[in-house]
């Protein structure tokens, strides 16, 4: 069990109290135990969305910015819309914890330290995942589609059939993949196999879960390229989120660069990169290296302004977070 500390800065008393209650619920159910600490000593900071807290965001500690659901989503790597549920808190804390583990692993590697890394299992999974993600991308985009590929793991074998748009997996490995702890080898061609004892799942789901392990854009996608979507991903199965809807809408209309997507969707670059990675592994992404997105005005300035007002008002009335 790993221990990490969390500090609350500028949050209202009821929010802090709710967070502490949620942490109590989480502890014992998660691989990381979270405790409250002073800001100077904490591993992670949880901040109110307030200009007065900018100094903390400029520091080197991961910050989770809490914003009210009637505010715009702040451009920060980790955010939570208030009010939030315990599962949302768990999700963001897991992301932060993984980043902390990865960065400590990177720092130690750079320092050439021979000692074993903490949480080495997660680190191994991440490094192996790069090979797996690239091989999945190659399998789904290859013109010469092999009927079946396989990936090995200590928990079993996973099969991928790009032509069927499906992967085949058994329960123990599926649970590992879902909990982002599986260590999967790169895909390689497989012989015909009886898959009747395997669960059939859509490749898009595997692509999505694999992409969540990446901390940045994978090396097999061009960082300075423009990206468009051939068709919409099934965003719903990939955790419905406004940012994904926004990115999908824009990318099906025009090629976009990563920075444009982050600005348009109001989300962190890491979320954009994971989304692009998932779309690439689902064979939905078209990469145009170095191409600039076209600039096309389609409406007079007054029309969009009025529409923006309607859209904001409608979202507010329907309880759709901004």
């Amino acid at each position, binding site marked *: 069990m790993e221990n990490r500390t969390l500090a609350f800065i500028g949050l209202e008393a009821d929010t802090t109290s709710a967070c502490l209650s949620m942490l109590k619920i989480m502890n014992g159910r998660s691989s990381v135990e979270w405790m409250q600490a002073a800001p100077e000593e904490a591993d992670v900071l949880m901040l109110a969305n307030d200009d007065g807290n900018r100094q903390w965001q400029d520091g080197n500690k991961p910050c989770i910015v809490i914003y009210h659901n009637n505010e715009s989503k702040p451009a920060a790597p980790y955010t939570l819309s208030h009010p939030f549920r315990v599962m949302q808190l768990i999700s963001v804390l897991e992301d932060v914890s993984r980043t902390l583990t990865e960065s400590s692993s990177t720092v130690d590697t750079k320092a050439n330290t021979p000692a074993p890394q903490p949480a080495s299992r997660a680190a191994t999974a991440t490094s192996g995942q790069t090979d797996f993600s690239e091989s999945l991308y190659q399998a789904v985009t290859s013109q010469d589609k092999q009927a079946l590929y396989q990936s090995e793991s200590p928990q079993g074998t996973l099969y991928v059939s790009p032509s069927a748009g499906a992967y085949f997996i058994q329960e123990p490995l599926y649970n590992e993949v879902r909990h982002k702890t599986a260590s999967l080898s790169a895909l390689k061609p497989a012989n015909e196999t009886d898959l009747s004892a395997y669960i059939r799942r*859509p490749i898009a789901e595997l692509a999505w879960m694999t992409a969540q392990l990446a901390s940045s854009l994978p090396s097999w996608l061009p960082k300075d390229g423009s990206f468009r979507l051939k*068709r919409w991903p099934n965003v719903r199965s990939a955790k419905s989120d406004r940012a994904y*809807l926004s990115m999908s809408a*824009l990318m099906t*209309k*025009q090629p976009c660069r990563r920075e444009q997507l982050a600005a348009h969707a109001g989300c962190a670059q890491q979320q954009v990169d994971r989304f692009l990675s998932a779309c690439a592994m689902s064979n939905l992404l078209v990469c145009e290296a170095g191409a600039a997105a076209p600039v*096309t005005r389609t*409406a007079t300035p007054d*029309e969009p302004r009025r529409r923006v007002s309607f859209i904001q008002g409608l979202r*507010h009335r329907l309880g759709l977070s901004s």
Partner: protein
Amino acid sequence: MNAVASNEFKILFTGPMGAGKTTAITAISDHEAVSTDVVNTDLAQCNKELTTAALDYGQIVLPDNSCVRLYGTPGQERFRFMWPILLNNAAGVIVLLNGEHPELLEHLEHYVDAFGAGKVPMVIGVGRLPAEDLGRLETLAMRLEERGIALPIFDADVRQQDDVLLLVDALLCQIEADDCRSMEA
């Protein structure tokens, strides 16, 4: 995209008989949808007692007292003459389809073509899909992709308000994306 009159924001719900247009409008309207239901005499097409013969209407009043109007088209082909009238000035269209229907693909193309063929912001919601049958949605998306049309297609149980809200949110994102095509590169 269609021009939207400055004082009107209209969302259109369309689809074949029994796809859930009235239910979807009622799920988000401030009041129960005003329907013009009559006894269904076309039981071969859809086995339900009542059906909409003219249109459904719902509305959502916004904080600034402006109003979003929700219109549901009648599903029967003989009322098709009303579709372009209702489509006029619509900000977007939500197409609801019955995933169990044997002519699902034909219905998809029929309604997409009738309501702008992808030129008007549009979202497709498919109901009554067997659990986890995402392959069927993929088939629909690929059929449109072959024609160069990329539209969001979700499984949607319109009896669940969250499902209707997802469709509306995806539609709003498409309208925003149309407006943001002018953003700085």
